């Protein structure tokens, strides 16, 4: 069988290799007595035994598991949970049918919640439902998973996780699930790699699977070459990550003593919950596209304000650079970006689109100005090509700040900066009135090399190591120094171990990268000497 590669959201990092095991759905084999009084008693007894079993499990658990199980016990002991089931039983329904139906109703209200934390609690409610169903059909039934297996399921429940033997390794692949779920917390605590949001998983598959939890990647039925690569990478990762982990919270410094500022890129604020702001010097890039995923309702000012404010609060005084909506190109948004452009990368994208839609753009600017009253927000415009675009952004922001203040709304004028990703901007940086610059190395590389990373046949040409790209980056760094403006780099190159030494030698002293790359980047930086091969413009 050909190998299958899957990618999803990382929920717990680490490598695993093991046999695939598809978790079967719960089936209850129980015959109704037909007597409402007996059915009610059966459910009452099952709820009591379930909460006793969970309380026992909690007594021998530690850390977060105690609270997670305690929550389930508290829910089970509350009559409000079973009210509806008992009413249905009184009307003639079987205990298991009534319980499942009422719990499914309850679970649905969690699944459809706006807040990801509450959505993630649906797995706890499913856990409660299934533990009681197990009790109704004679006892707990979750011991069958083979130790060390790579578990595939739609979602996984905390008590099932706790009932499994993880001492032989193993990993979790979920088609749904969430990095904020209780089971993801447990997996992180126990070091079990876990990937969520994989979409439809093949049901009829077996054999082995290779998991890279941190990258959110799984290979099912790998061929020999993938297996060899995996083993080599894991071995390398083990030694390097042990050394890198020690540097995670340290300031970044090169071997020759130069300080390097480390910022992080954020695609979805949920990612921040599991990490400490102490690992970075601030946020170098917030991609606000995640706010616009719902094509019918774009987020209003208050909704955006709340998200931006939460980012500022997380950063606790560190700067937070928020990029205005960067739709278009490889990031189409339904009902917003232009369909059918012959070349979307050269079309209406980034700030070009925002300036065509001032109605939407001003909402974002107002939300940013309000959040800026809570801490150091910096606003960054993407795809700026000519100075007047940035001047317009600056002007609009000033207008919005004035009108907010006139209405008595707390607001502050944030610094306005720009991405440097269009060669025209890179080559004429001195003409732009920007408070700071950030190199978007992905787009800069493809515009300089005239090769799209998403076009397989030319992807190799879109190489940030091309001397032309590195020379241009060195030019931008030097120009920023002349202008006394901060220059950072926030593309994928910023967290790439192979590129970091080259970027430092090109004069870059501020890198923004995915949080998972920070420890490794600090290690690479500490091993880089800046005496040798300096790239000059």
């Amino acid at each position, binding site marked *: 069988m050909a190998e299958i590669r899957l990618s999803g959201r990382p929920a717990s990092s680490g490598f695993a290799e093991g046999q695939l095991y598809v978790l079967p759905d719960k089936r209850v084999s129980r015959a109704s007595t037909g007597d409402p009084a007996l059915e009610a008693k059966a459910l009452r007894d099952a709820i009591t035994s379930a909460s006793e079993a969970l309380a026992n499990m909690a007594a021998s658990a530690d850390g977060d598991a105690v609270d997670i199980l305690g*929550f389930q016990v508290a829910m089970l002991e509350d009559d409000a949970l079973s009210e509806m089931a008992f009413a249905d039983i009184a009307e003639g329904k079987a205990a298991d049918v009534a319980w499942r139906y009422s719990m499914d109703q309850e679970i649905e209200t969690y699944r459809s919640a706006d807040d990801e934390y509450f959505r993630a609690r649906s797995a706890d409610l499913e856990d409660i439902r299934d533990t009681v169903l197990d009790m109704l059909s004679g006892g707990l039934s979750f011991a069958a998973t083979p130790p060390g297996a790579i578990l595939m399921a739609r979602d996984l429940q905390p008590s099932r996780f706790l009932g499994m033997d993880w001492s032989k390794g193993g990993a979790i692949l979920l088609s749904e699930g969430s990095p*904020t779920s209780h089971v993801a917390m447990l997996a992180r605590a126990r070091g079990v790699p876990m990937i969520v949001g994989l979409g439809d998983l093949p049901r009829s598959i077996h054999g082995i699977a290779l998991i890279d939890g941190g990258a959110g990647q799984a290979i099912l039925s790998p061929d020999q070459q993938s297996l060899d690569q995996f083993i080599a990478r894991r071995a390398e990762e083990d030694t390097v990550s042990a050394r890198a982990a020690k540097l995670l919270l340290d300031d970044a410094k090169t071997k020759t003593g130069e300080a390097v500022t480390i910022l992080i890129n954020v695609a979805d604020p949920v990612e921040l919950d599991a990490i400490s702001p102490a690992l970075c010097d601030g946020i170098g890039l917030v991609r606000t596209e995640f706010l616009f995923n719902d094509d019918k309702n774009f987020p209003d000012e208050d909704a955006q304000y709340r998200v931006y404010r939460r980012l500022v609060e997380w950063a606790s005084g560190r700067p937070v650079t928020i990029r205005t909506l960067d739709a278009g190109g490889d990031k189409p948004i339904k009902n917003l970006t232009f369909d059918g452009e012959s070349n979307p990368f050269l079309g209406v994208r980034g700030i070009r689109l925002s300036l065509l839609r001032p109605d939407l753009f001003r909402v974002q600017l107002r939300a940013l100005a309000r959040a800026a009253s809570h801490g150091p927000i910096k606003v960054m415009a993407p795809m700026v090509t000519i100075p007047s675009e940035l001047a317009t952004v600056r002007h609009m922001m000033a207008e919005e700040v004035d009108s907010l203040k006139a209405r008595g709304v707390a607001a502050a004028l944030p610094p306005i900066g720009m991405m440097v990703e269009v060669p025209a901007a890179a080559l004429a940086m001195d003409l732009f009135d920007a408070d700071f610059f950030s190199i978007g190395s992905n787009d800069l590389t493809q515009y300089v090399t005239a090769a799209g990373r998403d076009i397989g046949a030319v992807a190799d040409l879109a190489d940030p190591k091309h001397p032309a790209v590195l020379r241009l980056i060195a030019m931008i760094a030097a120009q920023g120094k002349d202008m006394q403006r901060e220059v950072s780099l926030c593309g994928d190159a910023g967290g790439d171990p192979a590129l970091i030494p080259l970027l430092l030698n090109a004069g870059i002293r501020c890198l923004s990268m995915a949080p998972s790359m920070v420890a490794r980047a600090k290690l690479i930086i500490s091993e880089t000497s800046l005496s040798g091969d300096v790239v000059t413009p």
Partner: protein
Amino acid sequence: MTAHKASASHEETTRGSALLTNAVGLHARPSVKLTQLAKTYQAIVSVATEPTGPWIDAKSPVKIMRVKAPKGTTLYFEASGEDAVSAVAALVDLVERRFDEAEEEGHG
């Protein structure tokens, strides 16, 4: 904010309110803590997210979780009974202490 006795006509009701400022709102662990604390009082204690209700039994974790109150929600408390004043004061204090949660791991 502090608890105070409202001079209701028929029965004495104590009221109080507090802003939810912990990262995850009235979540799994905070809900359990809140109901466990409420249960230590004899008073009938209710909670709402609007000053006018609807009022929810503050001793029921199931009902409190159904509210799905996020961070930034103001919680209103209402209690009647012998120890109503101390019940409301204790609940307001719990919310203002952010449920004694560590904020880094923003889970519930």
